[in-house]
């Protein structure tokens, strides 16, 4: 402990520096002015001023997901904190490590309905991994360090520290990271050795296996993706990834089946449905994946690797649960596989791959770009080609464009794909792209957007302009809340209630007002040119690519249906009407 007393605000800044924080995304207000004073008086930590607090959290999420570090947010009390709630919930659902500092009225006013007071710890309790209200400056150093520890260890997530103004102004000694004893939260990383043996044996004996892997591989760090690739290749088994897992296994690999789930490929879902051994690595059997639960992989023995015991047996009962960190578990599995000289059953495997080849031949992602209207799939396929081998990061908003991006852009590495999966937050992509660009100033960062989502957080264009962030916004403009329109078409008798986007801005002029480059096309023949121009321009771009407004996203497993009941295209939809039970699901 140092012997000179400093203010609470200075303690906060010291703790941030001690934790290796480089940048804070924030927005000031009365309750956090002491912290802004401390920021003013130092130059180690950079502050990025967003335009709405929701943007700050998404920016921190983008920063965190693309670097593996903890993203840091600073907002004021009351409305500052409530504006952050959506982002916190988003980070909780997608397991993103965030520390969010919120201002609070002074301790003696708490509970008085004071100006800009709200019960921040009460409001954020269900949407954070943990939260703190610091009532005594003596606890501040410890809480700061513990918050970072909780945010990043185990299953990562958002942590809120609520900071009354008087605590930020009180004087105290600072306790550095090394002197804080963290005995509170120690999740288990190393798996049980017996379970590993049992699992590897089951894997080796499989005749129709599949690896189903998710965001937990990314959470575990780049080493986990390497180990996964190594293990999957050693077995020769097929591998599919969730939306959150894209990049954890190279998309170009011949063992990769594409994404699975509601908008996953035919081959991925049929392989899941027909498999006899399923190895789930860091994925959580989300309802977008399983479809109808009683028809999910009916003949499969299931192994589930997850660091969070509450993910295991939540939706789907598994045969071999393994609690531990993906990288630790895969390392141990690889060792057992090698030491015991396990070999796959090649005869059975050849038959399995032949079956998979038949499913692949259905070519469920085919589309037809012969007409005069731009097809969104074509735009993304071309973008994927044009950025191949480039140092690039992709974020998305939420809707059809998000699903097409997941289907048509291949990701070879982890941490290159940032999307809101669990909460599905429209407005995530633009601020997330800012956060990614701040972390990787020289890389290409593209936000794949829909025109409706874009309007949800477009105040952040001002932030992009201020910091000269060369973010590229690629709007797949279908003049509809396309995903809503698609559900209305398929499930609600084509009653397009309130899903048309009236009075959209002129996106080219919008770009202009923020000093960005605006591009627009409506012609398939111009798509390549506009994408190339967007990529090459040294600065931020909004590209308004006007696409077929009636295009739907296929394949699709309608809610309440099973993997083998998927709709492959528009002609399929009449043949397979959606069930009543399916309609009540989201």
């Amino acid at each position, binding site marked *: 402990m140092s012997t000179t007393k400093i203010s609470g605000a200075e303690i906060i800044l010291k703790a941030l520096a001690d934790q290796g924080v480089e940048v804070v995304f924030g927005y000031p207000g009365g309750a956090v002015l002491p912290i802004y004073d401390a920021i003013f008086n130092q130059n180690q930590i950079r502050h990025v001023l967003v335009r709405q607090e929701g943007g700050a959290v998404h920016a921190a999420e983008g920063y965190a997901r693309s670097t593996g570090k903890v993203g840091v947010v600073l907002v004021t009390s009351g409305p500052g904190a409530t504006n952050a709630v959506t982002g916190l919930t988003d980070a909780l659902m997608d397991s993103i490590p965030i520390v969010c500092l919120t201002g609070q009225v002074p301790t003696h006013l708490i509970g008085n309905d004071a100006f800009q007071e709200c019960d921040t710890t009460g409001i954020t309790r*269900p949407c954070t991994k943990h939260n703190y209200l610091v009532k005594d400056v003596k606890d501040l150093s410890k809480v700061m360090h513990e918050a970072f520890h909780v945010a990043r260890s185990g299953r990562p997530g958002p942590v809120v520290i609520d900071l009354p103004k008087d605590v930020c102004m009180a004087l105290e000694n600072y306790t550095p990271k090394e002197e804080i004893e963290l005995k*509170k939260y120690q999740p288990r990383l190393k798996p049980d050795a017996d379970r590993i043996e049992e699992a590897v044996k089951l894997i080796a004996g499989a005749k129709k296996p599949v690896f189903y892997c998710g965001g937990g591989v990314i959470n575990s760090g780049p080493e986990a993706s390497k180990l996964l690739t190594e293990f999957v290749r050693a077995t020769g088994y097929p591998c599919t990834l969730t939306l959150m897992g894209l990049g954890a296994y190279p998309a170009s690999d011949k063992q990769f089946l594409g994404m699975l789930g509601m908008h996953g490929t035919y081959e991925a879902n049929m392989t899941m449905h027909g498999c006899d051994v399923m190895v789930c690595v860091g994925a959580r059997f989300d309802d977008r994946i399983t479809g109808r639960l009683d028809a999910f992989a009916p003949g499969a023995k299931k192994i589930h690797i997850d660091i*969070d015991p509450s993910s295991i047996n*939540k939706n789907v*009962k598994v045969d071999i649960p393994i609690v531990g960190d993906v990288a630790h578990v895969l390392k141990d599995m690889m060792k057992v596989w090698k030491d015991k000289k396990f070999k796959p059953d090649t005869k059975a495997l050849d038959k399995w791959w032949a079956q998979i080849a038949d499913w692949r031949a259905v070519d469920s992602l085919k589309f037809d770009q012969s007409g005069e209207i731009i097809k969104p799939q074509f735009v993304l396929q071309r973008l994927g080609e044009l950025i191949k081998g480039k140092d690039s990061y992709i974020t998305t908003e939420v809707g059809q464009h998000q699903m097409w991006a997941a289907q048509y852009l291949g990701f070879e590495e982890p941490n290159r794909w940032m999307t809101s999966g669990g909460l599905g937050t429209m407005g995530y992509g633009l601020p997330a792209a800012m956060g990614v660009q701040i972390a990787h100033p020289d890389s290409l960062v593209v936000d794949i957007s829909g025109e409706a989502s874009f309007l949800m957080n477009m105040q952040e264009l001002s932030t992009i302009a201020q910091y000269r962030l060369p973010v590229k916004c690629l709007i797949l403009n279908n003049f509809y809340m396309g995903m809503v329109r698609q559900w209305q078409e398929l499930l609600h008798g084509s009653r397009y209630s309130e899903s048309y986007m009236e009075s959209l801005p002129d996106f080219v002029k919008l770009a202009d007002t923020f000093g960005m480059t605006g591009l627009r096309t409506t012609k398939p023949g111009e798509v390549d040119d506009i994408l190339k121009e967007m990529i090459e321009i040294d600065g931020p771009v909004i590209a308004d690519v006007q696409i077929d407004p009636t295009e739907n996203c296929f394949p699709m497993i309608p809610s309440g249906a099973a993997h083998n009941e998927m709709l492959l295209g528009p002609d399929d939809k009449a043949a397979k009407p959606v069930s009543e039970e399916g309609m009540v699901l989201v």
Partner: protein
Amino acid sequence: MTIEQQINFHTISVLVDNEPGVLARVIGLFSGRGYNIESLTVAEVDIEKAISRITIVTSGTEMIIEQIKAQLGRLVPIHKVSDLTLDGPHVERELALVKVVGTGDKRVESLRIADIFRARVVDSTNESFVFEIVGDTGKLNAFIDLMRPLGLADISRTGVAAIARGTEGL
């Protein structure tokens, strides 16, 4: 009904840091995820280390009970979660204060039954008794049912406290 769908009662003991908001975290978890709370008691059990013990009686299918324990285990201020119902024999006790108002035969009868149940009189007026009764939930329910026709006027119950039998601590 298959075993998987069968709903059972479980008594779960939880050791937590006695800090502000910890009870709200536990209760919020139950209400937010739609789990049942049949009874919940909490009190500090280690003043030096500021540890409280929460005893929760809940019900659900096997999968739900497993979820409840895993979700509790995830809360940062929670040190230990243990399922007394699964872990082996344990003792459960609850205390109730039961007010019975009446005169004549009914009053005498209530006193007679109280004696059988080993309930104590902790307050009395010419027209009323307050009985204190300790036992498992079933015994308390039986006593209260018998008091109903005899002028039952008010009940206050503590909820279940529970502990494993034998030498092992939590």
